[in-house]
């Protein structure tokens, strides 16, 4: 008597239920096997239960969400902890991180990337390590000892052979790169192995010291801004964690699994992938920050915050320079911050305050148009 998959599909196709419920319903029904009558009954009961669980119109969901995220803030720690309990990369966590997300900062205080690798690299430690060396920005101090030779007015760079090998660099490449960037005479020493001699254009102390300083800022290999790369095995798969974030450049690297690589820099995600990705990034980052502190906050609240930050097509800050500063109401803006300027501007422009929001109506002293205040009874 059980009905076929096609009938089930046709019966549940038109349901006004969230997709995940419909999906579980179908799975369950297929597993158990039901008669048409039973399915009808199930659908009716589900509909009832769903309608019961729906938010009621006029509910002030904004305030509830704001409180649900703000209230646990008091229980969070201030300190930055090590990433995932491993003493390798420091990441801002807790309240400072939450503030950072909500502030929509262009640069987080500790940018970090999680780079997933494609199959052939992720299984092999050495291959993963190789990518890591390709990505990590190599500076001269990582590979060499630099001595300033004042007598001969030159810089002597003694390269460590081992590190060179490890990072698959060779002395000529380095010399070329240095010559290119510094625009001075760079010579590979002939008598001593692995030595480069750099002579400034004019033999002055200032120039020499300047050179000694500048040489440190040159990226010899890898991606600038990626300060350190750590390879870790996670669930039978090697993954790279980086200090510093350069999403656009990393995505170009061979062997990087573009679909699973991410960064904690929301601004960068917005730039590279667009606003929808940024919205999702805010949700995941905020959820992770909260759950890391052992706080459970319903995802709907975080979604709402993320949506209001992103609903104009750009990531806007929660605060004076973002949402609160762009409100329609003069009173709402004045009651938040920079009171006097908003009033003066409003006067100058001849603005109207339509008194639709919460603060405005509180100020004027009348019921707010939210919740029970938004319902009117009319006597017939």
């Amino acid at each position, binding site marked *: 008597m059980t009905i076929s998959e096609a009938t089930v599909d046709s019966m549940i196709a038109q349901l006004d239920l969230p997709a995940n419920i419909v999906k579980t319903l179908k799975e369950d029904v297929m597993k158990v096997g*039901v008669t048409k009558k*039973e399915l009808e009954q199930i659908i009716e009961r589900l509909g009832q239960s769903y309608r*019961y669980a729906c938010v009621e119109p006029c509910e002030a969901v904004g305030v509830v969400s704001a409180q649900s995220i703000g209230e646990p803030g008091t229980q969070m720690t201030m300190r930055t902890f090590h990433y995932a309990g491993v003493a390798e990369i420091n990441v801002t966590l807790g309240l400072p991180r939450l503030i950072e997300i909500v502030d929509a900062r262009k640069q987080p205080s500790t940018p970090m990337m999680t780079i997933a690798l494609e199959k052939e690299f992720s299984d092999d430690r050495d291959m993963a390590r190789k990518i890591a060396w390709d990505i990590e920005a190599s500076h001269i101090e990582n590979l060499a000892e630099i001595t300033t030779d004042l007598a001969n007015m030159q810089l002597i760079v003694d390269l460590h052979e081992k590190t060179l090998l490890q990072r698959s660099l060779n002395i000529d490449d380095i010399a070329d790169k240095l010559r290119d960037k510094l625009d001075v005479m760079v010579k590979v020493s002939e008598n001593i192995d692995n030595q480069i001699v750099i002579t400034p254009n004019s033999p002055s102390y200032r120039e020499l010291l300047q050179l000694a300083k500048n040489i440190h800022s040159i990226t010899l290999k890898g991606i600038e801004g990626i300060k350190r790369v750590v390879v870790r095995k996670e669930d039978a798969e090697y993954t790279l964690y980086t200090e510093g974030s350069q999403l656009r450049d990393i995505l170009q690297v061979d062997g990087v699994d573009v679909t699973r690589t991410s960064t904690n820099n929301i601004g960068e995600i917005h730039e590279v992938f667009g606003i929808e990705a940024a919205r999702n990034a805010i949700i995941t980052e905020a959820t992770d920050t909260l759950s890391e502190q052992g706080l459970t906050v319903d995802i709907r609240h975080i979604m709402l915050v993320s949506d209001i930050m992103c609903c104009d097509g750009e990531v806007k800050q929660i605060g004076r320079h973002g949402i609160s500063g762009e409100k329609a109401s003069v009173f709402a803006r004045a009651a938040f911050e920079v009171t006097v*300027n908003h009033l003066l501007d409003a006067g100058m422009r001849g603005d109207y305050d339509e008194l639709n929001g919460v*603060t405005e109506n509180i100020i004027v002293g009348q019921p707010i148009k939210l919740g029970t205040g938004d319902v009117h009874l009319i006597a017939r």
Partner: protein
Amino acid sequence: MNDIPSIPKRVGAIKFGLLSPREVRKMSITAIITADTYDDDGYPIDMGLMDLRLGVIDPGLKCKSCGSRAGECPGHFGHIELVAPVIHVGFNKTIRKTLRSICRNCSRLLLEPEKKREFLTQLEESKDIGHLPDDVINEVFKEARKAKSCPYCSTEQLEIKFEKPSDYIEDGHKLTPTEIRDRFENIPDEDVKVIGMDPASARPEWMILTVLPVPPVTVRPSITLESGQRSEDDLTHKLVDIIRINQRFQENRDAGAPQLIIEDLWELLQYHVTTFFDNEVSGVPPARHRSGRPLKTLTQRLKGKEGRFRGSLSGKRVNFSARTVVSPDPNLSINEVGVPYAIARQMTIPEIVTSRNKELLRMYVQRGSELHPGANYVIREDGRRIRVSEINKEELAEKVEVGWTVERQLMEGDIILFNRQPSLHKMSIMAHMVKVLPFKTFRLNPAVCPPYNADFDGDEMNMHVLQTEESRAEASILMLVQENILSPRFGGPIIGGIHDHISGLFLLTRNENRITKNAALELLRKSDVKDLPEPSSYSEDGEPLWNGKQIFSQILPKGLYLEFPAQVCFKCDTCKKKDCEHDAYVVIEDGKMLQGTIDEQAIGAFKGKILDKVVKEYNPGAGAKFVDDFTRLAIRGVMKTGLSFGIADEDIPRTAQMQIINILTEAEDKVKALIDAYEAKELEPLPGRTLDETIEMKIMQELGKARDQTGSIAGMQLGLENSAVIMAKSGARGSMLNLTQMAACVGQQAVRGERIRRGYAGRTLPHFDEGDLGADARGFVKSSYKSGLNPTEYFFHAIGGREGLVDTAVRTSQSGYLQRRLVNALQDLEVQYDGSVRETRGVVVQFKYGEDGIDTTKSDYSKPEAVHRIVRMVTGKEVN
């Protein structure tokens, strides 16, 4: 009787604008010309700053302008005719930008006509989509400034420099406000629109003042000191200054004084007007009171937390509220609050007299205001309010008529709002039913402490008495405690058992308690239980005995099915579920608890699985009843066994102490070895870390391990019958860490996650050698709290403790600001009837709330389990 009170009018919108000189004169009741306030007899001088026509502040007097008394008269503006125009400080920025973008000759905006049209349409567009016009206007100014000469009269434009506070210098020549005003006057209306101003309500020349409105005295009331001396408001002082200088200016100019003096006076007038508006302008020395305190002028009154906007308009002070200390009373329902008689006598609820309640209300009036359920005021039909006193109570009671209003005292069963600051979430204000009790504190069931975040160490809470029928209806439907058991934050219970509730039920339900009939009835005395189930066993002499699980089952609702692992669960690799040998798997069938132990997972706040289920599957009322019942049962349960903790409970045997000492010395040796290796440069650095960081981390690890080992030794010695262990394991209070710190070893003290290293050069304290990296030199506390800390340990412990305090202080202010910003940004969002979330302008933020439209407190219904359950119920077949 028949006139229905008219519906109060609603303010539809408020328009902002600048005051034109004409308007200032029009709204002024008089010009103010004398700087003096009172004459020798103490009578306000006519056309002075305290002119009687400006309004009244003294009680008993009547306003000369409108005839109303103090409190009714809103006050009336006056005005000062300024001898020469001055700039309004607030508009300096706009004046500067405008000056630079208009022609110095013909005053037209320095843009081509089509450019103007373009900007105008842009302005329209941004207004249509509800955006602020700031960006467009700035663009206009930027474009217009680029012009070298006027496109209309071809006059060459000169660079205008702005010098703080309010000087405009054009090509070395200072522009006087008069000159600026002249230029602004000539800007055509169409051009004014392009720079974002509305010529009808704000002409640019109005930013330069020629007439100064004088605020009414009600805005700047003077206060009479005890000595009978009058003390004037800051604003009045400032106005006196302005009038004085204005007069002197006039005299000097009339007398034909030299240009230099005129300019000086002009500048002085500008200074006083500037500080009248804003006394914190950068570059302007603030005007001071005689005592040296800076004056609080207009801007200072408006801005900031205590300013008019945040302090008086967004936050208002209210009547019908009370505040006192809170204390616990487990015998109250969670929906109730104990209100002291003293407060109940003061707080009133207005009740309109009808034919049905006339006798009752009359009785209240007759009892007067002294005897508790009495009345404090009656309001006659004509609106007169009469206080009920001992003298007139009989007489008033006689007179009470239908249509009068009696303000009766607060009584048992009334609904009130109860609040504890900081009000961080909606559960910080909940509605309770009043229970009038003796003594002087508010009493509440300790189970409602978590949502308020209250404890009883001296916390005070506020009560608000609702005054209208509508508000009481809303409060009882939406705000009653039982309606808020589930937190919208995570959809679980935020109300639940704490401390003794948990340990009480834990002690009752664990093991096979043998409870006699008398004891059982005593335990369930306060719960609404009629009869006991079949006894579980009989004693030797045939007396029936029950166990704790049976007793607990009595307060469970019928038909409850639930299974879950308890807090005491050992987290075995494979859970044996029903066959758990630790009795840590709770099984409830048809409202009967078959096995397991009740602890935090079952009834605790934030966690309580049983409570969660009861509220969701039955109703909030059942949930509240369950909480009431289990709190009462728990208190009796804990009284039956008794639970106490003393210093002797931290005792551990000598052998264990020796073991602990051994572990610690061993750890110290290991640390020493590490340091030796480090000094000999034999230590391999961890990848990506310096040598210094590596050694620190290794030492921390070693010491942490040692502390944990000592902890587990102490934990073993204390055993499961130790009351502190019972509390920690059941989740009632404290943790095993707290315990081991008391009994075994306190452990490493840290600052910013590192061992302590600051102090003297190279060492933390003079007791150690320079460069000593050893455990005790860097804040490792070997002692336990019981054995006592040695002086250096004590000091390090204080350092660690201080960090915690600082952290909390910083965190509260930071998270408070975060909360304020979040609330401010999201407060206008509302679910519409079509399920979308929109803000005031109608901008859609979400098309369907939370992508599925489900309320967070009911989010369980969107989970797959809900579907499984329904399928199971209909088909009778198990899904999984």
